[in-house]
Structures are given as C-alpha cells and as structure tokens.
C-alpha cells in the first residue's frame, strides 16, 4: 500500500465522544446572525451618513453657480460604467441573506491561454493602471493567470481564465446572466464586432471577508473569458486592502483589451 492509499483511509479513525452539542452550535449561530445583521445596519447607516456629509461638504466648497448656468453639475460624480443592465427581473434573495444562487457559470479555466497573449495582456493591464504596481506572479500557469495589482492601500489581484461556449455570444451571455451570486442583473455592452461584455456587481466572499467583481467577455469566435478582481493579494486568503484594486471604469476596460489581444 502506498502513502496515497494510506491517506485515503485517514478518516476511518475512531472518534472520541463530542463535547459540542447541537444547542451550543445553534446558540452561537443565532448570536452570529444577530451580530451580522446589526453590523450590516450600522454599515448602511455609516454609508448613508458618509454620502450625506460628503455631498454637503462638496456643495459647501463649490463656488456659487453663475446666474446663467442652470445646471452646474451634480455634487457627487460617480465614475461608474454606463453600460445598461440586462433587461431581466432582479431575483429575490434567499431568506434574510443578500445572496442569490449562482447559475449558468460558463465553463472556464480548462484551456491554456498562451504565453504571448498573456504577456500582451499583462502589458495592456499595466497601461490601464499606470499609477499602480502590477506584478506578474512567480509561478504562472496558462489556465488561471493571476497578477497582483497594488498601491499604498495594499495588494489586490486580477485573474483571467478562458473557455469555450456554444451558440452566439449573445446567447452565451444570456445563459450566464446569473453566473455570480448577485441578485441584480449584470451590465452589458456589445461592440461593433459582436463581442459581448458582461459586468457583474461586486460580491462579498463570506469566508475570506474579501470582495470580488467579475467581467465575462464572449467573443464571436466562441471563446469566453472570465476576468475577476479581488481585494486579496496573490497568496492571501483574507482581504489585504479595503477596496478592489481597479475602479469599475478601469476594470471594464479590460474587456475590450481581451477582445483585442485574446
């Protein structure tokens, strides 16, 4: 018997009687739920207060509007991507949670992407975030390519994977509308060549405490790319910076770049 076979039987060991009861776990679990809800409410209150304070401050610092200028612009400018959302009804979260079950995830991560293309993509990514440090990983693999993107807030990462789909890009994009755990439909843009870009809302990861955002790119040659940005360093399993490394606008630019360099 070799060592792998020995390992396969490692769960077949006698277990001492447990000291944990179901009641213990239920009590701690309920406390955790209450704490999470209280934290979420405080977080929302803090965000609302922050936005209100920020808007008021900006308005106070703004010079008086010229009399003939009827629209001096909004007090707070959001640099969001202006792609329309896919026209389907939002889903209802399960129970008290904010998450919905992922469905229709494209099959990616099984196909090598080629060193030349990855190198070209890496260079273009550096161009999107010239103010940040972009570090290629020490160990690259063609299936799941990750780079670290960081600044003084800490390191994050961007990864890309490739796969193939059947049908047209639009059909594949429709099938992947709920590919992440978001209850809101994604934003979508179709370019002149028929490539479809689908940008999903930021999602929290319950285990690591990290957040991530996903962009799917469906190309006319039936290649699909999944690009994700996370506030995790390359070797981390816990969040390493307070926000995602790229703004939504910068992240969305990676779609057309992939369509160009593959």
């Amino acid at each position, binding site marked *: 018997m070799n*060592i792998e076979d020995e390992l396969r039987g*490692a769960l077949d060991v006698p277990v*001492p009687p447990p*000291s944990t009861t179901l009641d213990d776990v239920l009590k701690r679990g309920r406390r955790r739920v209450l704490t999470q809800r209280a934290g979420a409410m405080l977080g929302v209150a803090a965000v609302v207060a922050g936005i209100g304070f920020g808007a008021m401050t900006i308005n106070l610092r703004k010079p008086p509007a010229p009399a003939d200028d009827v629209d001096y612009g909004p007090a707070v400018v959001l640099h969001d991507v202006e792609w329309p959302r896919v026209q389907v009804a939002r889903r209802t979260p399960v129970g008290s949670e904010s998450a919905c079950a992922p469905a229709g995830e494209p099959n990616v*991560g099984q196909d090598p992407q080629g060193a030349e293309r990855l190198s070209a993509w890496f260079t273009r990514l550096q161009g999107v975030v010239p103010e940040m440090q972009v570090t290629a990983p020490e160990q690259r693999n063609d299936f799941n390519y990750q780079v670290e993107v960081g600044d003084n807030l800490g390191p994050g990462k961007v990864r890309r994977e490739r796969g193939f789909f059947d049908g047209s890009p639009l059909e594949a994009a429709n099938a992947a509308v709920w590919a992440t755990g978001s209850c809101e439909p994604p934003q979508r843009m179709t370019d002149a060549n028929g490539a479809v870009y689908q940008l999903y809302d930021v999602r929290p990861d319950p285990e690591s405490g990290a957040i991530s955002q996903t962009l799917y790119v469906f190309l006319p040659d039936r290649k699909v790319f999944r690009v994700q940005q996370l506030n995790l360093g390359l070797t981390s399993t816990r969040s390493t910076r307070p926000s995602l490394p790229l703004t939504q606008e910068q992240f969305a630019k990676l779609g057309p770049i992939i369509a160009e360099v593959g």
Partner: protein
Amino acid sequence: MRRDEEFSEFFTSRFDWARRTAYALCGDWSEAEEIAQNAFVKAYAKWPSIRRETAEGYVRTIVTRVFLDSRRRGRDRERPVADLPEYGVGGGFSDPDAKLNAALQQVAPKQRAALVLRFVHDLSIEQTAAELGCSVGNVKSQTARGLATLREAYGEPVNSESAS
C-alpha cells in the same frame, strides 16, 4: 423553525465527519472539535443561502480555512477552561493510525491541507484549488512537496502515484 430543523439534521449527520476532517489537518481532537464547531456556527449563519447538495463542501472549505488561519496566526494552543472536561480529548484517544497522523503533522500546514483534500477527500486538483483559494499550479506543487515530506516522515520507500 424550518432553518433550525434542516440545520439540526445536517449537524447530526455530519459533525463527526467534520471533526475527522479537522483531526486529519491538525492532529488534535480537542482542536479538531473547536474547528468543527466554528465551521458549523458559520454554516448556520449562512444556512439560507447554502444549497443542501453543497453544504458538505461548504463546511469542509470552512474547516480547511479555519485551520489554515489558525496556523497563519501562530495560534496559541493553551486556552483557559472554566470546568474540567468529563473525558480526555487532547490526543489521548487511542488512534490506530497514529503513525500516519504523526507523519502528517510533519508536513507544512498548506501542504497538509492539499494532501487531505486531494487524497483523504478525493477531490480533483481543480476542486482543491477552489477550496484553498489558490491556483491549480499551486495545488500541484504543494501536493508534490507535501507527499515528499510525508514519505520521508512516514519512512515509506519511494513508491507512489503521480502527485497530479
């Protein structure tokens, strides 16, 4: 309450399994119990959004990550207790696989986690990568290095299937 009923059923059927998994990782029944309990508490909090068919994998992921977090923080194993336990749980239990367990403890924590997921739970490389939150290449290298250390600690002659 339906949530509690479903969760209770899951807890009853899988708690010992989670303890065994944690024990394979940490080699100490007391710590394994603590890890398993923490995993089920976290699972309870997320229970409405967990699909029943993936609940086992969800708990296994938490067990693995709680274990790795504890090793990353250099966890102090001495903990104050209010009352003495009624029975010993701290490694005194008779374990016929003690040699394997002792050898496993010589393997670095992340490599050990890769070995447990790959061989004890028979997960694919891709599934192991997803549970550990790392790349496929990283799982391959961690597995290969872990197997080499384990063989040396176990005293087994080199006779093994591929790490991949």
